């Protein structure tokens, strides 16, 4: 357990796995860039939470999962949703409120849900996803379907009561849940040290008797090794794990917000340790040809262009849809 174990496993991550992590990383990175470009040109207008800098954490975590495993994430979660495998077309359509979206355009970016790819729910309330993940984990345990649930949340949400309740319950019931804390150093506009009493999130786990590991989330091998170990453990009946993935939010909390409160030195350090070029260089060092990486990026740009066109040309939901999908059983209008 702990950093040393994760680091020693890291050497074992094969090139094909790293390439798959890169493919998902590039999809996230270029999707995020495209959203910001279309917001800046005013072509789109929506509330958008940039995930620049956190690509590798999600890409490595979701690569360690089976397609039928479950994900619960937050409104700052486009990287998690894409890495889990939601089709970009229906993600874009939902973000833009169109009838062809994952929730027929009625959920928007705050509530991306696509059970077919295991994206079970996206919550808009900080910390609320953790007990929901326990519910999914309990259902898997009772049904014996072997699924693992990953729940993503930020460092700020570990100060919410639901985090502590969920950690305790998951531990005592040995639920197949991986608690992935993406510690990006800021809870909205508040620095970590100004809002969190623990020096490290991982230090909260022993209080609940939970296995825990803190890793450099921006290192694909280290992150994947920790993710794989936690997923394997959960699937084998060994119970939950808390992963504290150290990462950094390179842009502000929300598109258009002022992030001048971030110390210049911290921002410069983050740019130096940018996980995307870091993983790309690692693959080149492993003798993966430049043309292979460029081919992946080009294919992704095509997929994104198609998704944008699909979203922009799709209709808004019909007004008659407003009463549907609210209750489990439809009622007369």
């Amino acid at each position, binding site marked *: 357990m702990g950093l040393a174990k994760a680091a020693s496993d890291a050497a074992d991550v094969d090139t094909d796995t790293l390439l798959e992590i890169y493919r998902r990383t590039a999809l996230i990175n270029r999707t995020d860039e495209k959203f910001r*470009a279309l917001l*800046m040109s005013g072509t789109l*207008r929506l509330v958008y939470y940039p995930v620049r800098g956190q690509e590798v954490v999600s890409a490595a975590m979701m690569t360690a999962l089976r397609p039928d495993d479950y994900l619960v994430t937050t409104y700052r979660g486009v990287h998690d949703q894409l890495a889990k495998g939601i089709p970009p077309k229906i993600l874009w359509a939902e973000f833009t409120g169109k009838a062809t979206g994952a929730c027929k355009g009625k959920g928007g970016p705050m509530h991306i849900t696509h059970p077919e790819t295991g994206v079970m729910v996206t919550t808009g309330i900080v910390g609320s996803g953790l007990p929901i993940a326990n519910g999914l984990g309990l259902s898997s345990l009772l049904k014996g379907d072997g699924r693992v649930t990953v729940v993503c949340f930020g460092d700020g949400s570990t100060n919410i009561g639901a985090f502590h309740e969920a950690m305790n319950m998951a531990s005592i019931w040995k639920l197949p849940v991986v608690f992935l804390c993406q510690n990006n150093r800021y809870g909205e506009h508040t620095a970590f040290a100004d809002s969190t009493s623990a020096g490290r999130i991982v230090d909260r786990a022993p209080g609940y008797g939970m296995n825990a590991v803190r890793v450099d989330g921006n290192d694909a091998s280290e992150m994947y090794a920790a993710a794989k170990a936690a997923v394997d453990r959960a699937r084998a009946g060994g119970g939950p794990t808390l992963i504290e993935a150290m990462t950094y939010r390179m842009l502000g909390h929300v598109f*258009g917000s002022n992030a001048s409160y971030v110390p210049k030195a911290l921002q410069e350090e983050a740019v130096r340790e940018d996980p995307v070029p870091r993983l790309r260089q690692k693959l080149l060092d492993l003798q993966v040809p430049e043309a292979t990486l460029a081919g992946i990026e080009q294919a992704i740009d095509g997929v994104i262009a198609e998704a944008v066109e699909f979203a922009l040309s799709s209709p808004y939901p019909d007004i008659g849809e407003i009463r549907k999908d609210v209750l489990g059983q439809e009622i007369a209008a």
Partner: protein
Amino acid sequence: MSFEIRIPGLGAGMSEGKLVAWHVKDGAAVREGDLLYTLESEKTAQDVDAPADGVLKIIGVEEEIYPVGELIGTIG
């Protein structure tokens, strides 16, 4: 397909923006990422790039102030 160019909403406090100057002529071809126009909002000037390849049709007038969301051009 056609991409609309509208005054962007940069932060909750922004309600309008000034179209300072176009950097591309009406009817000219642009590439994604090319500098399109300069926007001034809350006393800050910012560059706005083309979101796609295509031909620019200019609608908005230089030095005018427009509300957020106003259509000022298209790329098609």
